């Protein structure tokens, strides 16, 4: 496809990075199409009939799946962005450079989807810009709003390098390159602030949030667990994109990430349990209550099991096992955020919240859009470095068809 003259400078963006890269729609593409169509229907109903029509949100449960998963998990799982950029550009751990761009892309898309998700969840989304001029520095929500705006800007600038490179805009590349270190430092600070502030939200709910999760250190717990979740996401997404693109995996890098992940998880587990002991909440773990079971689930699949598994060299060296163990961490983090935002409040509020199918459709649609955008971006932008040296290559055993979700325009 040739662009009109006005847009001609952007022509390179329509050429796949790797020649002869042709996309064949498969199962995932069609599934994504169905989800998109369903999402469109739900979207119309949500804005036409109101939140109550499509969601199970209520005066008892004003926050549901869209905040608990889309926002809390979306932000936490995008924490890899600031972790890896700080590691490479500030701590000078250069060997992680190959995964900087895919991770920054993941973070960028993650935050973009958080913003889109908020457009569904906010009662009056057209007022989303209000915190820019209507200030309330005492509000954690005000702080998070500002941080997400600022960090989305930082991520856009960090990511712009790949676009400029593809366009061949040498000056822009140079400027972007020069700005990288200040951007990375700003990104790390902003992320530290809002990752923890998502936990600060719940500091104002003592007696409401179950003692298994309520602690004055909740901001710290959110921060530590987000770092672990971000590391796990890097491994998961490396593996998924390697499958989608049929390229190799940087196994030595992923093994180093896995070691860092064990340290992060062990630190988090120690801090968490020591804090609970300090607050006298350890006994709550074994009461057999619904909350206790969800807590056990969160800690077992997200923390303890992965620590054990990832400590084993046999797991770290095998791309499939490494992937699964990391996926456990991601799942555990999701359970944790849902526990804080839903399970932990159910006892006080009396009753249960279960999202509607419509809420699930929107969440699936957002996740699908993220995967689709990621797949498109890695095909058309210089995101992934080619893995050439044979010792770096460890192709997955089963060469499954590419789970790419979006047809490439040609």
């Amino acid at each position, binding site marked *: 496809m040739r662009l009109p003259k006005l847009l001609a400078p952007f022509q390179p963006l329509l050429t796949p990075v790797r020649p002869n890269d042709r996309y064949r729609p498969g199962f995932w593409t069609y599934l994504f199409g169905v989800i998109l169509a369903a999402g469109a229907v739900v979207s119309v109903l949500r804005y036409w009939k*109101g*939140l109550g029509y499509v969601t199970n949100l209520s005066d008892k449960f004003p926050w549901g799946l869209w905040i608990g998963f889309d926002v809390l998990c979306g932000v936490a799982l995008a924490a890899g962005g600031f972790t890896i950029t*700080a590691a490479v550009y*500030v701590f000078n751990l250069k060997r992680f450079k190959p995964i900087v761009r895919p991770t920054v892309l993941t973070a960028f898309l993650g935050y973009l989807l958080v913003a889109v998700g908020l457009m569904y969840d906010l009662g009056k989304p057209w007022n989303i810009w209000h915190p820019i001029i209507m200030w309330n*520095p005492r509000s954690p*929500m*005000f702080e998070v709003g500002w941080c997400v705006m600022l960090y989305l800007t930082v991520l856009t600038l960090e990511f712009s390098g790949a676009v400029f490179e593809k366009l061949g805009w040498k000056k822009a590349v140079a400027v972007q390159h020069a700005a990288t270190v200040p951007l990375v430092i700003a990104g790390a600070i902003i992320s530290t602030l809002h990752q*923890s502030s998502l936990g600060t939200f719940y500091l104002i709910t003592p*007696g*409401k949030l179950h003692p298994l999760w309520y602690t004055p250190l909740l901001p710290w717990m959110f921060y530590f667990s987000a770092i672990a979740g971000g590391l796990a996401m890097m491994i998961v997404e490396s593996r998924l994109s390697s499958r989608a693109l049929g390229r190799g995996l940087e196994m030595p890098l992923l093994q180093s990430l896995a070691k860092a992940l064990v340290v992060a998880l062990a630190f988090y587990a120690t801090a968490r349990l020591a804090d609970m002991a300090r607050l006298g909440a350890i006994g709550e773990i074994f009461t057999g209550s619904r909350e206790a079971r969800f807590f056990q689930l969160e800690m077992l699949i997200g923390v303890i099991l992965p620590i054990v598994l990832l400590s084993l060299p046999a797991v770290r060296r095998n791309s499939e096992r490494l992937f699964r163990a990391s996926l456990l961490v991601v799942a555990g983090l999701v359970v944790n955020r849902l526990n804080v935002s839903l399970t932990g409040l159910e006892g006080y509020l009396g009753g249960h919240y279960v999202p509607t199918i419509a809420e699930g459709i929107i969440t699936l649609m957002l996740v699908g859009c993220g995967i689709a955008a990621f797949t498109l971006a890695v095909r058309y932008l210089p995101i992934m470095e080619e893995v050439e040296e044979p010792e770096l290559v460890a192709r997955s055993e089963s060469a499954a068809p590419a789970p790419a979700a979006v047809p490439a325009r040609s």
Partner: protein
Amino acid sequence: MAFLPDPKSRGLLFDVTRCIGCRACAQACKESHGFPGTGEETELDAVTYTVVLDKGNDRYLRRMCMHCADPSCVSACPVGAFTKTELGPVAYDSGKCMGCRYCMIACPFNVPRYEWSKPIPVVRKCDGCLKRQAEGKPTACTEACPAEATVGGTREELLAEAKKRIAENPGAYHPVIYGEHEVGGTNVLVLSPVPFEQLGMRTGLGNDPMPNLTWAALSKIPKVVVGGAVGLSAIYWITHRREDVAAAEHGEKEKE
């Protein structure tokens, strides 16, 4: 950063021992706001700002916004849609609201409600009849009460009245005024013949304003920003300096 109760600000005193459960207050509230309903409701909602709950043994409890001195909703709202007015009531500006509903999560008394069925929804809660009070009139509920179970006045007047009632009727009251100290003090005060938890009211909330809890974390932001900037810059300098030195020593300083 805590805000102390203003003794001159206006509030309500609700006395469980006097309430006869006629629900005239709830009805008057509906009428003055133009809301549908009878006043017989048992749960607050977007068109019910106050309810009278039957607690058995001829005891009735009103539920409504407590109009805290340092309200959680005011601190929680990212756009400052809630304000604690000098007059006393906690006011809400729907024009500022973006509908995040954090106020509903934050409120220690679970008061704010939402218009779930509207495409352009706003938060709803007792407005303390701000307009009427600004004109020097009593709130609709106070005016309607035939038993003086709900009375209005400044906070210091109401506290003095409550203490007088407790002193003059030994044994008739649980000797605590709910709202005098809870969450730093509220402008709605409650007197009861029995301990408040027996009426299903939240106790053990502590005497510190809830916003202090979030502020404890938020007040550290400047330190994180400055510390982070200095710390990360220092680490950058050290890690890259070491590299420069090593390269220079090998006499083959690489260019990136």
